[in-house]
Structure formats: C-alpha cells, structure tokens
C-alpha cells in the first residue's frame, strides 16, 4: 500500500511537470493549481489514503506527501514566473519610445539679446555696471558734449535721424557717457547697452541696431588698461587664444582713438581655411570688432570733470556684428524680419 501510495504521488509530480507547459495564461495556471493542490485536488485526494496507513508507514508517506506538495508548488511557481515574464514582455512590446513627447511650446531669445546678454555678463564680471538711457536724445548729449560741435565734419560719420533741430534718435550709445558723468562723480565704470539709429540702410546697414558702450574714468587710467580690459573681454566672449590688434583711428570723443581687430575666429588668423580664402576676415586674418580710445579732455570739460585729475577710456561695439560672428549669421537684414524659422534657431 505504501508503495502504490508513493508511486501515485510521484505520478502526480510527473503529470504536473508534463502539463504545466500547457498553461498559457495565469488563468490556466490557476486552474492547474486547483486541480493539483486545491482542497479537492489530486494531492488532497491522494492524501486520503494516508489516514488508512499504519503508523509505521505514516512518517515515510507523510514526508513524501510534503515533498510532492513542495515540488508541485515549485513547478507551478516557476511556470507562473515564466508567464509573468512573458506578460511583461508583451506589455513592453506595445511601448513605443520613439513617439513624440508632449513638448511644451519652446521660447527663444533673439540672437541680438543672446549676444547682448553674453557681452554684458562678461563686462559686469569685469566690474562694470549697466546703465540705461533714452533713445530720443538731445543734440547736446549725442554730439556737442562729445566734442562734435555743429558743422563739424565728424558728424558726417554718423548720418542722423532727426526729430527736430535739437532732438534726434541717438546715433550711438555714447550719450550715456555724458548722462552718467553728469550724474556721478568719478570713479565711474559703466556699460550702456541699447538701440541706436542711423539714417543708413543697405545690405550692411540697418537704420536701427544695437551697441554697447563702456566707460571707465578714474585717476591714472591708461591705454594699457583699455587694452587689458578689451583683451580679457574678447577672450571670454570668443576664445582664450583670441588676439587683439589696436589700429589708430579717429573718434571725436576719444584721443587717442583706436579701432580694435581680433584674430579671425573662423580661420584662427591664418587668412584661409583648408586652402580657401577665409570668408569672414577676407584673407586678412583680422576682424574689426570695436572702436575705443581715451576719453577726450573736451568731453571731461563738458561734463565738469577735471581732465588734469582724471583720465578714462571708452569703447563701443555693435551687437549685431558680434552676433553675426558668433552665430555665423550672414545677412544683417534677417535680424529684424523676425521670421520664426530664424528665431527658433536660437532656442
């Protein structure tokens, strides 16, 4: 009796092992579990014989019954794990990571703003404060106080849009030099970003553009300080190996005056790229970027600073020019069309 009992139990294990593969779902598997391990299942039925066994057989039979129960449980659990893994696989099969995300609308800054922010960041980092002023200006602030009396040929350098005989759209951010010095005592270290206007419109000029003016006034400021400031500035703005070249020039409100070239960022000052003439610097290796100089004593006089006690430097640069160089924009007119296909490139 014991023997047939034991064989019966082994048979259960074999049968379960054979059939569990047919359970293709967790539902099938549950049915199988009930069939074998349920209260009225095959194991329970087999165990009925246990009660009729003699005490000498019971331990062995009981032990066997336990082993078979564990074996059946293990078989079914392993199948369950398999089925769960398969189900998880199936669920992932329907997951498409390549679908577009629910992207919030993207905004972007205008490239002029981008360049302007970058320039201001560098210069405020060097210790300059940002000041602002009106775009409609008096002739005195825009010209006369800057050593450009009426009928001075230097006025030809800037074609002016006038509102009246004495009021105009500022032709440069330099009137901020005047306004700042009139309202503050030295030392002064300011930058003035903003819109400026000229009566000039062609492929390389727009009637409105953006400038940033810098002004440092203190005791013993020299042109070496100017050169150092601008060198630090262009290195941070462009790259650490950017070289600076000072060319003598003329601005009515600075003396001496210089135009500043930097080594071309495209060809690295070589003048050519892969054997072709460089299109950015036109083979010269240098790119003109700003104008600067030592504040003219006449400017100090017009704002009531003592030119014997103080010296200073001023510089001004065009923001569109920087944006064109930095972002490779070829056509100036694109800046003010505000075509979104242009704007979105600066996200």
């Amino acid at each position, binding site marked *: 009796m014991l023997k047939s009992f034991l064989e019966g139990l082994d048979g259960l294990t074999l049968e379960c092992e054979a059939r569990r593969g047919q359970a293709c779902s967790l539902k099938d598997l549950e049915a199988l579990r009930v069939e074998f391990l349920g209260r009225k299942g095959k194991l329970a039925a087999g165990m009925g014989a246990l009660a009729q066994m003699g005490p000498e057989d019971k331990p062995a039979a009981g032990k066997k019954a336990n082993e078979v129960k564990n074996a059946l449980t293990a078989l079914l659990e392993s199948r369950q794990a398999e089925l769960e893994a398969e189900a998880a696989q199936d669920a992932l099969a329907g997951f498409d990571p390549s679908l577009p995300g629910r992207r919030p609308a993207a905004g972007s800054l205008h490239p002029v703003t981008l360049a302007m922010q970058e320039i201001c960041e560098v210069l405020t980092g060097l210790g300059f404060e940002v000041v602002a002023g009106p775009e409609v200006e008096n002739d005195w602030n825009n010209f006369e106080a800057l050593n450009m009396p009426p009928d001075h040929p230097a006025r030809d350098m800037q074609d002016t849009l006038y509102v009246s005989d004495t009021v105009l759209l500022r032709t440069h951010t330099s009137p901020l030099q005047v306004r700042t010095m009139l309202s503050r005592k030295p030392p002064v270290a300011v930058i003035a970003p903003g819109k400026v206007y000229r009566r000039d419109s062609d492929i390389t000029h727009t009637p409105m553009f953006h400038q940033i003016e810098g002004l440092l006034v203190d005791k013993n400021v020299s042109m070496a300080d100017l050169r150092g400031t601008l060198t630090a500035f262009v290195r941070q703005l462009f790259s650490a190996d950017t070289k600076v070249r000072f060319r003598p020039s003329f601005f009515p409100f600075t003396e001496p005056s210089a135009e500043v070239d930097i080594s071309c960022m495209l060809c690295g000052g070589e003048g050519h790229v892969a054997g072709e003439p460089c299109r950015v610097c036109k083979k010269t290796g240098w790119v003109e970027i700003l104008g600067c100089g030592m504040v003219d004593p006449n400017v100090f006089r017009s704002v009531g600073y003592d030119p014997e006690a103080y010296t200073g430097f001023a510089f001004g640069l065009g923001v569109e020019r920087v944006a064109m160089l930095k972002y490779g924009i070829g056509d100036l007119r694109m800046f003010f069309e505000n075509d979104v*296909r242009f704007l979105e490139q600066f996200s």
Partner: protein
Amino acid sequence: MHISLQWLREFVPFQGTVQELAERLTMQGLEVEAIIDPFEAIASIVVGHVLECADHPDSDHLHVCSVDVGGPEVLQIVCGAPNVAKGQKVPVALIGTTMPGGMQIKKGKLRGVASHGMICSERELGLSEDHEGIMVLPETFAPGKLLVDALGLEREVIEVSITPNRADCLSVLGIARETALGFGLPLTMPALNLKEDASAGDANTVVRIDIADGELCPVYRARALTGVKIAKSPDWMRYRLIAIGQRPISNIVDVTNYILMELGQPLHAFDNKLLKGGVIRVAPATPDQQDGQSITTLDGQERKLLASDLLIWDGERPVALAGVMGGANSSVSDETTEVLLECAIFRPGTIRKTARRLALPSEASYRFERGVDQVGSLFALERAAQLMAEVSGARVLTGIAMAEPKPWAERSHGFRIDRCNALLGLSLTPEFCKTTLTGLGCTVDDSNAANWRVTSPPHRLDLEREVDLFEECGRVHGLDRIPAVLPRISKSLDSVQMRDTEFGFLQRLKAWAVGAGLREAINYSFVGTDDLDRLNLPVEGRITIANPLSEDQNVLRTEIAPGLLNNVRHNLAQGNASLRLFEVAKAFVEDTTSDTGARENSRLGMLVHGARHSQEWPWEQGEADYLDVKGLVENLLAHLRLGPASFILEPAHPYLEPCVRVEVAAKSGVRLVGRMGRVQPKIADAYHARKDIWLADMDADLLRELSRATKPSFKSLPKFPPVRRDVTVICPATLHAEAIEAAVLEIKPKNLESLALVAVYAPEGPADGKGERNLTFRLTYRHADRTLVDKEVDKEHGKVLSGLPQKLPVRI
C-alpha cells in the same frame, strides 16, 4: 582717397612693396581699404605693328590689316577706323580679351574676311572719350609689348580711408609725409620752376583782391595767365588722373585737379575775359535784395543763395560759390585764352554749410570743410601756374594779386612726456618723442625737460592740444605695442548699483517669456504713419522723424503692437502659420515736460496666433484664444508676485475687440498694468491673418515699479487636512465667473481657505449670451489648529448653497 604708388614715389623714395606700404599706413591710422590695379581691364592689350593695310574687297570703309603682335604669326585684323594706316603702332585686343565695356573679342568674319582681334580706340580702352579713330602709339613701341607697360601706366593704387581729422592726408603729399615718417625716409617736394613773363604784364594791374571778412577767407591769391590754348592734357597727366579715378577734361581744368590731388589745395580757374571790373571780391551772398539771389553753377544748375553762403564776386556779380563750385558765367571753355587762377583758403564751417545745404559735395568743398594748409597754399599756386604754362603754352604774368587779412598764426602747446607715458601706458623716451614730433613737422623746444613747447606745422590743423601730440607719439610708436594690463576698478560706496536695474528687469521679463514658450522679436522703433493709422491710434502725441529714410519709417511707435503685427504678416507670407511672439521695447509719445520732448515707456508685447500647441501628435488641436493670452498674463503677474489682478472689459478700444484691462491692486492703489484682447478682425485682415490674433501689451516700467515692492514671504505649511466640497452653479451665460466667486466670498463661509473654478459646461447652442452654463467651483475648507469635522463644514457649505441663489440669478 586713391593714391598712386608711382606718384607717391615722386615725393618719397619708398622702395618696398605696395603691401608693405598698405600695412604700415594702416597701422599708422590711415586705413588702406584696397589695393587696386586701375588698368586691370586693359592689362592684356598688346602693341601691334600694322605691316600692311589694304581696303576690304567688299566694303567701302573697312580695312584688312596685317598686324605684327610680336608672336610668330602675323595676324589678319579687319579694322573700320578711317585713320588706320600701314606702319602705325596700335593697341590690339587679341582673341579672348574682355574689353573694359565687357565685350569679348572673338575670332570672326567681317563681310567674309576673317579677323583675329581688334585694333582699339582710346574710348574702347577707357583712356579718353576719343572714338574718331584708333589710338596711334609712338613709333618706338615694340610689337608684342603689353600696352600698360609701353605707356608706363600706373598699376598700383591704394584706396585709403581718411578719418575726418586728417585733412592733411587728402593728397599725395600728405600720404607721402606719412610714408616718410613711417619708413624713416626723406620727403622731397617737386622742384618749382615757374617762369614769369614780364612782357605779359603784372597780375596786380589786371585784378585787385578785396576780402570782406578775414575770418571767412584768411587769404586769397590769384595768378593771371595769357595766351592759353585749351587742349587735351598730355598723356602722362591724363593717365595719372584716370589711374586715381578722375576724369580728364582739358589741360587747364586737369591741372587744377592734378594739384588738388597732389597737394590737397583746391584751385579754381576763371576765364579772365569773362570777369568784369578788374576786381575779385570775397563776400557773403546778399539775398535780401528783391527776389532773393541765385547763381548758376558750372554744372548748369541754378542755386538759390542764403546770406550764409560765401561768394566770389567780380566787379559786377557773383562768379563762384566760394570753395564749392565755380559759376557758369565765368568758367573756362574751349575758347578761353586768359585765365585767372584762384588759390584761397575759406572758413571750413561756412563751406560745409553751403555744400550740405545745396547737396553739392565736391573734392574742393570736402577739403575746405576739413581745413587746408594756408602756408602751403602758395606753393600749390606756383606749381599750378607752372604746370598750366607747360601744358597750355600760356605765359604767366608777373606777380600775385592777393589779400591776406588773416595770416597764419603759429600754434604751440605744452608737452609733458610723463603725462604722455601715463596716458598711453608706455615708457617712450624723450629721444623718440622728439624725433617723432620733429618728423611730423613740429618745432620742439625742450629747454624745460618736463614741459616742452611744441609748435605744430600749418598742415596739421588737427594738432590743437597736448593730447593730440600724445596721440601722435602713440600712433607712430604703434598703439598695437601698448601692453595689456587689467585695471583695478574702484567704486564709491555711495554709488554702488542696486541689483534691480532697468536692464536687469527687462532681461528677467525676457527670461520669463522664453520659459512661457514665446519667441523674442525685435522690431524697428519707427514705423510708418500708416501702421499707426491702421490701428486707429491717436494722431496727437506722435513723434515724427523729420528726415525719414522712407514713409514706412517716419514715426516712432506709440505702442508695441505695430511691429508685432508686421511680424504676423511677414511670417504668414512665409508659411509660418502659428506664432507665439514677444517683444520688449520702448513706445514713444510726446511729452513736453521731458528734456527730449519724448516719454519713453518700456513695454512687453505678447502675441499668439493660430494653433495653440504644436501641430504634432499628441497635442489636442485647437486655436489660441482669450484664455491663452490671459494665461500668459496671469502667469507673468504671478511670476512677478503681483496681484490680485482684475480683468475688466473695456467698452471700446482702437484696435482690440474684446479688450480687457489688466489692473493690479498695489500699495499705491489700483494700477493699470496693461491691456489684452483680440485684434479686430478687419484690422487683422490687413495683416492677412485669417485666424484671431490675440495680443497683450504690458507696461514693463510699471511692472518693475510694482514688483520691486514685493518679495517672497514665508507662511507655515498647514498641519491639518482640508475638506473639499464642490458646488455646481447653473447660471446665465452673461454672468461672469468672477461675480460668483465674489458672492461666495461675501457669504464669508468660516474656514474657507480657497476657491477654484474646476469645470465649465456650456451646452451647445447659439453663442448669443442668452443660454445658460454650469460652473463647478471647488471650495477648500481648513482649520489652522485642528481637523474639521464634516458637520461644521456642512453647515458652512450649506450657507453657500443657500446664499448664492439669493444673491445672484443662479440655481445650484
């Protein structure tokens, strides 16, 4: 300013290359913008020798020539010129040559006879207007030689950009001085060899000079020439003028231009027979006579005169606009035999005013405006008279008729070398500074080592002050050799800048807008009057531009909208159908209390048009509407910690409909921070927008003022749970949500923490405002110190349920 290298070398023995010269001049402050070969277009023309010249068998005017062009083969060329003849040396364009006019020379047949090139006229070569026949060259020219070499044409010309302060460099002489300085070379002036002819008389018996005001004309000199024969100038002079871009006219006029270019002194030649009364008077115009006053200049234009214009008069009438242009009544013509040659100096400001007012800029006025060397002018007169005699066969009368009411006064300045070095950041030696200043033509008195006395030369009118001399020392040493030092930036504690600058705030607005998914536009500050009229904006208060570039840029924008709306038009035309734009910029209106007459107000404009979201899946599709633009405004106000805000429908607005005022409660009272709404469809049509354009125009200056008064303030987090109750209100569609919220707050239910609209249901139907809609509000109740029990919430919420229908025409 174009300078020929060959001409320059007559003044300074510079042996380097044109590139070396350009580099040096540029680094000395005379920017060389280009190196030009003025005769590039005829560089491949060769000298030919006409060996045979026969009549064309089939034409009465063509000739068939055999021309030796130096090669192994003699070319057969058909030529139509009447003057072609055997034995001539002629310029020949070979097959493949492109002529200055763009014509390409090809092998061809003329009336059946093959022609292998073209024999050229002067006009075809751009050397003169002469097209009577072919150009005949000197017999000594060797066949096959390049024409440009055979003629000795100048091949190297530099184009120099001269800054307004360097009037002295507007001549070959001026550039030669800089070249001599830059390369340490001597400067040689041309030898003066003027032969006066006593038998011709004395200039002072012909004319007397009378200057009304020495300030306007410090010196006027004239020489008289007789027996002038007007003709073409000699080749060398014509080619030289052509090389620097001047058009040769006739020998007398060419000499005045030649001297102008060579020495920078403008001259004028009168036909002396046409001058009356034996006097030259320099005096302002007198338009106070009846009918004003005018002069016909030699270009045939009649010019109305003002009292500020300086004129040259003869005994009877004005004969020239001083320093600007000669008069037609006294100009040199082909019949001229007597010449009065004027060499004068005029006040720069006067010349500039006249030239600008009459839009008559000339090479002469350009130089007078900037200042001409008064001392050097005598040399220019003498050299011009000499050249005129040489090229026109004229005899020069003895003497110079002149008046010099204001002789040149030397100017000297102090020069402190210590200060020079301190300003430049250099350590220049006294030797260097002295050599440099002397090299510039200054006289240096260094008996006081610390403070020299430096007298500047008469051609350097720009050396007016000590600092100008500093610049010269720096420039000649090389500004590029100044070391780079970072300055110590010191600040006064009193003027330390606060962080919330105008610039900083506007950048903050921009950063917010980018986060809100808007793209920044930047538009011109000016628009056209039409742009403002289209939006029905008031005419009063506009600031117009007196000299606009065009009609669509003639007025400053009084609001931010016109620019953004123009961007809609542009983008729609490009097929960009959905727009979310913003702009931060100033609007301008007249304000008589401002020192500039303008009030400038920074605005933040926001515009949405077309699809609300990306057109891509999975966004649900929908078009931007009021709630989109309002959401932006609400988000902005929250970002700036402003509020509570009210949104008030305006009965009328010039271009928005509906238009909603945005008001914010602040300490200073209720403030209008902006408006928003939909651009009236008729106006939107004008921008080709078929969908609604929603726009918000916010006052950035006011937002800044209000937001700087706010700061984040911490409140403890609630410790006890809230109880939420929803209430759905059925109300007429005309009743605003705000009114219901206000009514709930008026009921003052205890422990009500917040109130939010969570659902709106409007049954389908005509949108005429007559229907009803359901609004569901969620009320959150909370007690700060304990957990609320249902019963007490029910009681308070019950007050709301029963109270609302009493206050408003609603059902619950």
